[in-house]
């Protein structure tokens, strides 16, 4: 999809003014964090597991070439095929070639963020192959022709009424007078409509949560079972995933699996964790006859060894989205591309460029919740700051903002001047705001006062109170 991250401010304003989105986000704001907290409270080892999860990922990234080669060797040994793709174009071409060779007409898909990243559905459709999303959330947004707004709950921006509308518009073969009043009925309808699609598909495409170098297995974690029907029924199973999903052993995967579901949905374990190794074996009564893995780089290898390497530890659990006050206010579509929230604010500039996505690392209060809940301790705020620095260094931020920062920096480096100026300002503002105690509008601060009052300064500044207290205690004044 074409990124619209450059219009984040307008996207965010639209999101804030959307009553359906605000109701839907209200459900998410409380639900996900509460369930995560409960799950973690039950596992005393959680903090130690986070530390080990981080170490496993760091070790793997430091030896990524070795583990990828070993993984490839083991996939091939089990009868599968590995396709390397430098970018989205190559990944799409590899998948289309496999589908064409199979004479495929329809393809079922399990939820895959990498497939979104390479805009796979549009490419298949343009080439006469019908992709059918089978995850309930993904299916809903496919019917509505919109991108996911959350990396594990793609339709989180909708309420059941919008889902019912989408189903009525799409499932014209069903009785138009049928009641579609609750999530149960909607879920049953999707199950009924999609079951024949599963059975008829020529190719099934899934993502991967982990790739295991030791065994050449890909692992998917789902709750619906759609990913499993997608991969066991068609003749061909294609896995599309990023090169950073590798872990060395099954034991390493177990540690990360213990972190993943608890951080994502607050479950002890997701309903289905599935290891797939090669195609069906002689004597097997079902399973795909061909197994392909498309390994996508798309800018990932360039992040190694630099200030953004830590981002490659990401498990895509969405805990950072679920705990982000900015995401909770504006929703995922405001971020304008595939990956929203704090992880998107770091990853999107790396994948589509800081020129397009410069707003995203700025859309943060640096409250630090994202880092504190990340199962592999990715320092998201620090990396957003790195992007802000790059944006500044590349002169991409607006001139007024840049000259403002320059002016502030010039003053801040001269403490005497700084204290004098802030002292005058707080006295003037304190005097002017004496009557109401707050300002409804202030020159140069419309961005603040348009939506809330600015409190008037009261009494003396912190700096002067601090200095006085230190003097009284007899400490040397600095």
């Amino acid at each position, binding site marked *: 999809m074409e990124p619209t991250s450059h219009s984040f401010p307008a996207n965010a304003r639209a999101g804030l003014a959307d009553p359906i989105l605000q109701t839907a986000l209200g459900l998410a704001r409380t639900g996900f964090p509460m369930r995560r907290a409960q799950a973690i409270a039950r*596992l*005393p080892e959680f903090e130690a597991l986070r530390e080990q999860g981080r170490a496993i990922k760091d070790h793997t990234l430091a030896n990524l070439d070795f583990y990828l080669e*070993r993984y490839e060797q083991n996939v091939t040994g089990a009868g599968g095929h590995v396709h390397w793709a430098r970018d989205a174009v190559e990944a799409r071409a590899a998948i289309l070639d496999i589908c064409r060779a199979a004479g495929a007409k329809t393809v079922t898909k399990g939820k895959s963020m990498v497939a979104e990243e390479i805009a796979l559905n549009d490419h298949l459709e343009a080439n006469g192959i019908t992709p059918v999303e089978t995850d309930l*959330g993904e299916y809903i947004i496919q019917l509505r022709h919109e991108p996911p707004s959350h990396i594990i709950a793609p339709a989180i921006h909708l309420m059941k009424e919008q889902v019912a509308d989408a189903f009525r518009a799409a499932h014209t073969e069903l009785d138009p007078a049928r009641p579609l009043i609750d999530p149960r009925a909607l879920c049953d309808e999707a199950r009924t409509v999609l079951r024949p699609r599963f059975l008829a598909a020529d190719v099934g495409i899934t993502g991967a949560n982990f790739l295991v170098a030791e065994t050449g297995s890909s692992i998917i974690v789902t709750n*619906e*079972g759609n990913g499993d029907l997608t991969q066991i029924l068609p003749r061909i199973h294609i896995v599309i995933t990023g090169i950073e999903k590798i872990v060395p052993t*099954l034991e390493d995967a177990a540690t990360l699996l213990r972190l993943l579901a608890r951080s994502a949905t607050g479950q002890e374990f997701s309903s289905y964790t599935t290891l797939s190794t090669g195609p069906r074996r002689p004597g097997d*009564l079902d399973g795909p006859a061909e197994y392909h893995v498309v390994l996508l780089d798309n800018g990932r290898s360039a992040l190694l060894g630099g200030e953004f390497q830590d981002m490659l530890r990401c498990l895509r659990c969405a805990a950072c989205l679920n705990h982000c006050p900015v995401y909770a206010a504006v929703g995922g579509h405001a971020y304008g591309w595939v990956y929203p929230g704090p992880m998107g604010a770091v990853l999107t500039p790396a994948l589509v460029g800081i020129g397009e996505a410069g707003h995203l690392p700025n859309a943060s209060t640096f409250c630090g919740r994202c880092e504190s809940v990340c199962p592999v301790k990715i320092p998201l705020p620090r990396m957003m700051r790195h992007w802000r620095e790059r944006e500044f260094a590349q002169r991409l931020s607006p001139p007024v903002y840049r000259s403002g920062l320059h002016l502030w920096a010039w003053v801040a480096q001269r403490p005497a001047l700084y204290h004098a100026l802030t002292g005058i300002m707080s006295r003037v503002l304190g005097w002017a705001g004496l009557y109401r105690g707050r300002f409804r509008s202030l020159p140069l601060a419309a961005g603040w006062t348009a939506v809330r009052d600015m409190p008037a300064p009261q009494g003396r500044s912190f700096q002067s109170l601090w200095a006085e207290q230190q003097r009284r205690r007899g400490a040397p004044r600095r």
Partner: protein
Amino acid sequence: MTARDDILGGIRRSLRRGPLPADKTAALTARLAAHRRNLVPARAAALDHGGRVDLFVAMAEEVQTTVARVASDRDIPAEVARYLAAENLPAELVAAPDASLDAIPWNTRPLLQIRRGRAEAHDAVSLTPCLAAVAETGTLMLASGPGTPTTLNFLPDTHIVLLRASQVVAGYEDGWDLLRTRAASNPSPAPPIPSPASGRGLGRGQAEEGGSPQHADRTGALPRTVNLITGPSRTGDIEQRIQLGAHGPRRLHVVLVEDAPHQD
């Protein structure tokens, strides 16, 4: 330059090094071969076998798996019949062709109609064995093979799993060890039990068995599919309200046979 060389080269450039030296490669190979366990939570690991079985049941029931404990194999047919009647389901099921189900005295319940084979679209109830059950999270581990087709775990609305108490292990790592032991011995798979009623699915599987496998079943490879199943299928994609039976089974029922405890 191929994409493969380019990506591997790009990784090495970013890491500011060339291909790993031989001693480093040997150390990493040894790490893979050793596959050492990381921290395993005490929740299940600290319990004795009876405690693990109880923990498995408690954790499974927490995620809407139902569990019936029976004393021996002789009680399985009655429990299956009772469950189907209680759920208002027809006394008809498709069972895994696996030999482990052969000794069950199904003839004690002649009204139970049983077909052996893979699942087809019209099958409402399936019955399968499992490889292990993980006490830590109430998780069943099922491995695919000629006797255990994966469609049985996902296509029918109701999935019944036979579990022996001796199969309950503490953590996922114990399950991995079982998989590795099986893979290393790689027993030549017994042919599926022929059954006149087993329908087109089985026929298709058998046709391909002697056909043209594109690869040999290599010793050491895991089964094609390993399913870790924790409760019935579910979704929270609409308003985050959990619904069971999204695409996989709506019901997951475990018949737990109390056999001799597992010797560690």
